[in-house]
């Protein structure tokens, strides 16, 4: 979706303000929101792409005015309510009012380190050949899905070069919608700064994204 999350190249946000000796969390509720989100992943049954969409899928003015852990927390609420694991009336009174739904499993303290260490690798086997190879010129497609995508607006329609064929990875556009992992070839695509930002841009800058094959089309040698 062309939402508030797709920030690359947008203006007016001001300067970057690093905080000296920044703590990992800035308040207790951030810690709890973080831990609840991680702990609910398995029993909740959603995947990381569904989580990202739950966070970004709101009016841009809301997205931009919320803190990061607010986005996480309200994203978690959305995921829970969509699956009827929790209802609004329960959050309102702060107690369970309805019987729990059956869940896959609860994250136990004994499993925490194991689960974190395993993570969630996204590379998958494939029988298909990669369409592109290193040094191929490609154009990022001009797509504007209303649903989750990881193709940022600032590269759409622009020509870059395949720098690396990464492998076959879970395709977020499909995975976020519940349509399955639909693994696709993933590439690092490098763009000249001037291709993205115009001839006045700094010529010493290059920018790359990691793009799945469905985001790309061949570009002619000379255009």
């Amino acid at each position, binding site marked *: 979706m062309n939402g508030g999350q797709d920030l690359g190249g*947008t203006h007016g946000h001001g300067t970057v303000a690093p905080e000296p000796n920044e703590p990992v969390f800035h308040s207790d509720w951030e810690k709890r929101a973080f831990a*609840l989100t991680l702990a609910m992943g398995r029993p909740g049954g959603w995947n990381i792409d569904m989580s990202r969409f739950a966070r970004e899928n709101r009016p841009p003015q809301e997205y931009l005015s919320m803190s990061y852990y607010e986005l996480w927390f309200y994203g978690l609420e959305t995921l829970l309510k969509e699956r009827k694991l929790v209802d609004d009336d329960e959050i309102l009174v702060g107690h369970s009012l309805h019987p729990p739904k059956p869940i896959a499993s609860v994250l136990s303290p004994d499993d925490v380190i194991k689960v974190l260490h395993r993570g969630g690798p996204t590379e998958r086997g494939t029988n298909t050949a990669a369409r592109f190879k290193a040094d191929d010129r490609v154009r990022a497609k001009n797509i504007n899905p209303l649903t989750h995508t990881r193709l940022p607006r600032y590269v759409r329609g622009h020509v870059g070069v395949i720098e690396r064929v990464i492998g076959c990875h879970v395709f977020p556009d499909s995975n976020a919608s519940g349509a399955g992992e639909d693994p696709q070839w993933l590439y690092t695509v490098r763009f000249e700064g001037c291709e*993205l930002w115009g001839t006045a841009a700094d010529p010493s800058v290059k920018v790359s994204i990691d793009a799945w094959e469905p985001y790309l089309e061949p570009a002619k040698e000379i255009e």
Partner: protein
Amino acid sequence: MTDHDHHHDHDHSELSETELRVRALETVLTEKGYVDLAALDLLIETYEKKVGPRNGARVVAKAWADPTYRARLLNDATPAIAELGFAGRQGEHIVALENTPTLHNMVVCTLCSCYPWPVLGLPPVWYKSAPYRSRAVADPRGVLADFGVTLPKDTDIRVWDSTAEIRYLVLPMRPAGSEGWSEEKLADLVTRDSMIGTGLPKRPEDLK
């Protein structure tokens, strides 16, 4: 009401509402048996106390000190980093990016907050903020200036937008004057920002 008062009240009421809601949801999830409170505490403790940029500093220091490790790290970072015991969530597929006298790498996630947790911990607020995410890809030298870093004009800058599940770790250049140092001492020169590409490592004289 002054702007300052307004801002303060606004922040305060929003925080209170969210705080109450987080507490309420945690109680509901616990009562339903979906979460185990001890697991929540362990998750928080892990990222507050154990997993952080000191992990990445050990990786960088080892790469500075050991040319064969450096080669393994640049060739395939995930197993090389796992040699030191760092692996897993948000670091399943790591690529190390080598800074050279002619190339400076900088990492961003314009779409959310993708960051190599096993080696750097959880991202700082600025990394997740609109100013960084909007400008890193369009004006990296301007962003570096916000961090007080100026690079030579002829240094190429490469910005890596983490749009997939590949996580990037910058391998900064080893500071002059650190010849013969132990890995432990070298790690003290490695800053978090130098591994994101928004900073440079400390110089030996900075430690004195």
